[in-house]
């Protein structure tokens, strides 16, 4: 890309993934890889299996066939919290936040995995536990600054407008310091200005922390602008994979999803 970032080898490889719910085939024989430091966009019409693919990657769904290799470790089944432990964070299409908690507490939950050591110290609220809490709080404050949500730090997220909720959700995922960040329609339901902000955050995260990002998005302008590579799904099959410009010209992709200018 323009700033000369280096895209590395594959961080995650999905090999011949097939997933069915009863008789409905959600994914058939899909292979894709996500390379280190890249921004990969997964696009396709509704029901193409995009979200199912993310759910397979972070362990919500267990595919009937195929394997996932993440950081060199191959697995067939995985629990979501193991995926989180290994460094996969995600956001959800319909915003899954802890609605009763404040913005700050929501983002703090992203640090839970990092706070292992002093469980038995915590009730005493002194010494190591206090230090640890302060340390994590500082980290979370940096994320809050980065996402420009200082003003809603203490607001229960249930009260926030949708665009801000999406931003808080991103913040929670970032608090996990993930190696792989999965974003399910991060810009759905946003106005132009909010979309621009979100694009900036995504690019900055990728740029500054080198986080690998796989995102699902319907806004083709956004996809073509920010992604290094695009994978196209249709009816649970992969029909395209390549740089944005190449995918945009692919006749099959145009037929299935992009449509032609008439």
């Amino acid at each position, binding site marked *: 890309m323009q700033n000369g970032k280096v895209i590395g080898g594959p961080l995650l490889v999905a090999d011949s993934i097939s997933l069915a719910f009863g008789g409905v085939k959600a994914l058939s024989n899909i292979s894709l890889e996500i390379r280190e430091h890249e921004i990969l966009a997964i696009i396709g019409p509704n029901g193409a299996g995009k979200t199912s693919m993310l759910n397979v990657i*972070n362990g*919500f769904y267990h595919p009937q066939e195929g394997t996932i290799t993440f950081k060199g470790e191959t697995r067939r089944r995985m*629990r*979501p*919290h193991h995926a*989180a*432990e290994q460094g996969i*964070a*995600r956001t*959800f299409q319909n915003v*899954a*936040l*802890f*609605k*009763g*908690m404040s913005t700050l*507490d929501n983002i*703090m*939950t*992203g640090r*839970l*995995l990092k*706070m292992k050591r002093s*469980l038995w110290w*915590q*009730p005493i*609220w002194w010494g190591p536990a206090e230090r640890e809490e302060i340390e994590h709080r500082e980290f979370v404050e940096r994320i809050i600054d980065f996402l420009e949500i200082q003003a809603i730090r203490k607001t*229960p997220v*249930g*009260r*926030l407008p949708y665009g801000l909720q999406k931003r808080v959700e991103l913040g*929670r*995922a970032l608090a*996990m310091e993930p190696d792989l960040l999965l974003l399910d329609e991060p810009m759905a339901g946003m106005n132009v200005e909010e979309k621009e902000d979100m694009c900036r955050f995504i690019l900055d995260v990728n740029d500054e922390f080198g986080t690998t990002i796989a995102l699902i998005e319907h806004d083709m302008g956004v996809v073509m602008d920010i992604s290094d590579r695009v994978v196209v799904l249709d009816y649970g099959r992969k029909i395209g994979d390549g740089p944005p410009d190449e995918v945009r010209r692919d006749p099959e992709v145009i037929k299935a999803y992009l449509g032609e200018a008439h």
Partner: protein
Amino acid sequence: MGPFLEVLIGGLLTGVLYSLVALGFVLIFKASGVFNFAQGAMVLFAALSLVRFLEVMPLWAALLGSAALMVALAVVIERVVLRPLVNQEPIILFMSTLGITFFIDGFGQSLFGSDVYPLDVGIPKDPIFIAENTFEGGLLVDQVDLWAAVVAGLLVLVLALFFQRTRIGRALRAVADDHQAAQSVGIPLNQIWVIVWSVAGLVALVAGIMWGTKLGVQFSIALVALKALPVLILGGLTSVPGAIVGGLLIGAGEKLAEVYFGPIIGGGIENWFAYMLALAILLFRPQGLFGERIIERV
């Protein structure tokens, strides 16, 4: 003054016993958003197992055995009921706890028998007189109730430290709020459920010991759970201190109402007073005295 205090103290102490049952409800609700209808059945199950274990082993072993049984029950419930229902609506999980209730009631009684068993774990049962110098004749207090108060106090202290102060507290609130999101930040849902249901099982054991000592271990102690419902509504479903304060208010309120208003309208108030109070609370403060306000953007 003497009789009033005697009624008040008696009421407060009975309230503690309600609180013990209500605590179990609160724990599970806080941690999974599930209203566990089976808490009363768990109290009965724990008490039944203890009483039967006591027939063949010393107290410490029986206590350990019953505790282990409650933990095993938690593991089974998580495995068989909760895990397949992850990400379902709270009402569906609630319905499943109705099923659990019937199962535990039936299973417990076919395993341990359905007679009335006296339970004696060494708690003195004789009522005692206190403050004999201040009031003429002193105040009559049930010793079992006093013990229950001490135990409940300790229990709340431990639970409060465990759940409010540790990162588990934050994890629990997260799990209660949204299963999927909780999993995605790395909270092991299944383990959390086992922990919480185990703790609720142990609380049920404590409640079972107290109620069993007072009334004998019999099916009707499963029904004391019904008295925990108004306590929960009063104190708030999500608050541990709320369960305690709610229990105290209900216990004291119903005894005082019985003694002072009962004669005016013909008595028997004690049986329905708690529910009336709960109804009034629902009208004016649906989240209870200490419950979390549910905020919803519409």
